[in-house]
């Protein structure tokens, strides 16, 4: 039997600009990207969905606030509700928060400056489908590039997020945006939706500085393979 390459939908919004890198990175780790235009109302048969970075709808109103109403987002919402794996990077993270699929909101960096540099991240959880290839406490290097990456929630919501262990990645040492509790990436309570400001798709080859992002993407692809093999065994 020929093994199927796991397929991942990469949603393309007007203003997305990391869709190409996300697709390339998936190819580099043995998966197959399926670019899906935001106006589609259905997702193809995929094992996961990536909402890439960029400036969907020009970041008008609030980052991610308009993209949330794209036709494809209803399908992404049902996919997630059925337990489907969804990864949002940067603008994708902002969209997931605005859509209510992840808690909190991404606000203007406290420095008021756009940041573009490598940051160090500490892995807080390795039991999510996005971090199984990491070790707890492992330090990862990945780039950030954003003006609005300051994750915020009120005290009660932050306490809830911490108590449920939803924080997957924290900035170590250098917090580039002033996010609460140095939060860089969080999952939903069910653990199948993950958003982060850093860019795993820009860090899959040491040629560009770090290949640590491949750990996140490969964890996701492993999870799809596991699910597929369970599916075929039944």
């Amino acid at each position, binding site marked *: 039997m020929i093994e199927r390459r796991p397929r991942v939908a990469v949603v393309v919004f007007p203003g997305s600009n990391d869709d190409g890198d996300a697709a390339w990175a998936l190819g580099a780790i043995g998966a197959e990207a399926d670019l899906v235009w935001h106006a589609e109302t259905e997702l193809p048969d995929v094992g996961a969905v990536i909402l890439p970075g960029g400036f969907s709808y020009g970041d008008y*109103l609030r980052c991610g*606030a308009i993209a949330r109403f794209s036709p494809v987002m209803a399908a992404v919402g049902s996919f997630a509700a059925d337990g489907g794996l969804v990864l949002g990077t940067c603008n994708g993270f902002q969209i997931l928060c605005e859509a209510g699929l992840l808690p909190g*909101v991404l*606000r203007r960096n*406290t420095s*008021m400056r756009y940041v573009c540099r490598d940051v160090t991240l500490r892995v807080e959880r390795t039991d999510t489908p996005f971090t199984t290839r990491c070790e707890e406490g492992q330090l990862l290097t990945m780039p950030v590039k954003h003006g609005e990456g300051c994750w*915020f929630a*009120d005290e009660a*919501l932050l306490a809830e997020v911490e108590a449920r262990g939803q924080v997957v990645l924290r900035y170590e040492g250098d917090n580039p945006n*002033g996010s609460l509790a140095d939060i860089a990436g969080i999952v939903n309570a069910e653990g199948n939706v993950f958003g982060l400001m850093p860019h795993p798709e820009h860090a899959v080859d040491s040629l560009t500085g770090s290949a640590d992002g491949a750990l996140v993407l490969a964890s996701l692809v492993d999870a799809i393979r596991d699910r597929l093999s369970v599916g075929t065994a039944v």
Partner: protein
Amino acid sequence: MRATVLVRPKAGILDPQGQAIEGSLRQLGFAVGEARVGRVVDLQLDASDPVAARAEVELMCEQLLANPLIESYEIELGA
């Protein structure tokens, strides 16, 4: 009927944009306290009943115009 929606950062929420403006105003020699920056949305509505119009604009605020986690809003109805 016209409506104006004022969206503001909630009290106590850090507003880096407001802080930057505050600093610039001081540099210009103005004696200002705190500056906070919000957003104004002017709307032209089909509704003519003010009660119905307000209810509709409130829904707009809840669903799109403001993020309740960080923003409060005020609605002003005009003629």
